[in-house]
């Protein structure tokens, strides 16, 4: 079972993509999608060095829905700033956030979420101190940002991806 299905989530995702592209649920297409889903993960197995298992999908779901709300909220904030704020008042800064998260997949998800949220852009992880360098569009309180990222984003990700090692 493990050899046949190295990553069941990827198989499922490929099947769904195939069905969406063809806009059908005809049995033939389901079969072909399953075939693709069986072959492609095995071919790309060497390309994915770290195997991650998704634990606690409900935490991930909660994190994603919370960050969707956050994206909407900061969209309005950024639009308001672009339209109405004087440009001299803008306080755009680089800030540094110390990170505890080590898992590569978790860091990838974290970077996607942070970059999707308007107003923040991930720059890089400083490798010597494991700090995240982040650019904020309109900084009012650096500690608030650090707290938000650590509480809202990092803690659920640690729960999802790193629970076993702890």
């Amino acid at each position, binding site marked *: 079972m493990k050899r046949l299905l190295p990553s069941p989530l990827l198989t499922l995702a490929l099947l769904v*993509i195939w069905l*969406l*592209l063809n*806009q059908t649920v005809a049995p033939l297409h389901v079969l072909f999608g399953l075939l693709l889903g069986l072959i492609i993960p095995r071919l790309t197995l060497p390309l994915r060095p770290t195997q991650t298992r998704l634990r606690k999908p409900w935490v991930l779901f909660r994190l994603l829905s919370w960050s969707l709300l956050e*994206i*909407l909220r900061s*969209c309005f904030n*950024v*639009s308001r700033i*672009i*339209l109405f704020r004087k*440009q001299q008042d*803008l306080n*755009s800064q680089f800030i540094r956030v110390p990170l505890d998260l080590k898992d590569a997949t978790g860091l990838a998800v974290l*970077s*996607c979420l*942070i*970059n*999707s*949220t*308007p*107003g923040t*852009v*991930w*720059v*890089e992880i400083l490798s010597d101190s494991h700090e995240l360098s982040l*650019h904020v*569009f309109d900084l009012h309180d650096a500690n608030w940002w650090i707290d938000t990222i650590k509480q809202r984003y990092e803690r659920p990700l640690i729960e999802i991806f790193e629970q076993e090692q702890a």
Partner: protein
Amino acid sequence: MMQLPESLPLWLGIPVVFLLLAGSLVTLIGALGLLRLPHFYQRIHGPSITITFGTGCFLLASMLYFTGLEQRPIVHELLITAFVLLTAPVSAMLIMRAAVYRDLRNENKKATENLHQSLPKPKTD
């Protein structure tokens, strides 16, 4: 010019119109931010609202409209949504890192040039 259908139910038309208006306004605001913000590190935040909110609105409108038009659920716009949501952060991060590296490199170059100028010139005799 346009080939719109004869009629559209009201429950479908109003959300589609609203989403189109919101999406186009947000896209315009994002491009305006790209144009008039003074510094590059501020300008990179302008298009991000275009990419998340604008794209979301237009894709939702398209999904609703075709679902109502064809009388069956049409959800393949979700593919573009997922693709854009996965790739836009990557390209934003790469552009940002390229900008930071280039700026750092320029600063280094300037610093070394200044250093060379401030050094006393070797005597030639």
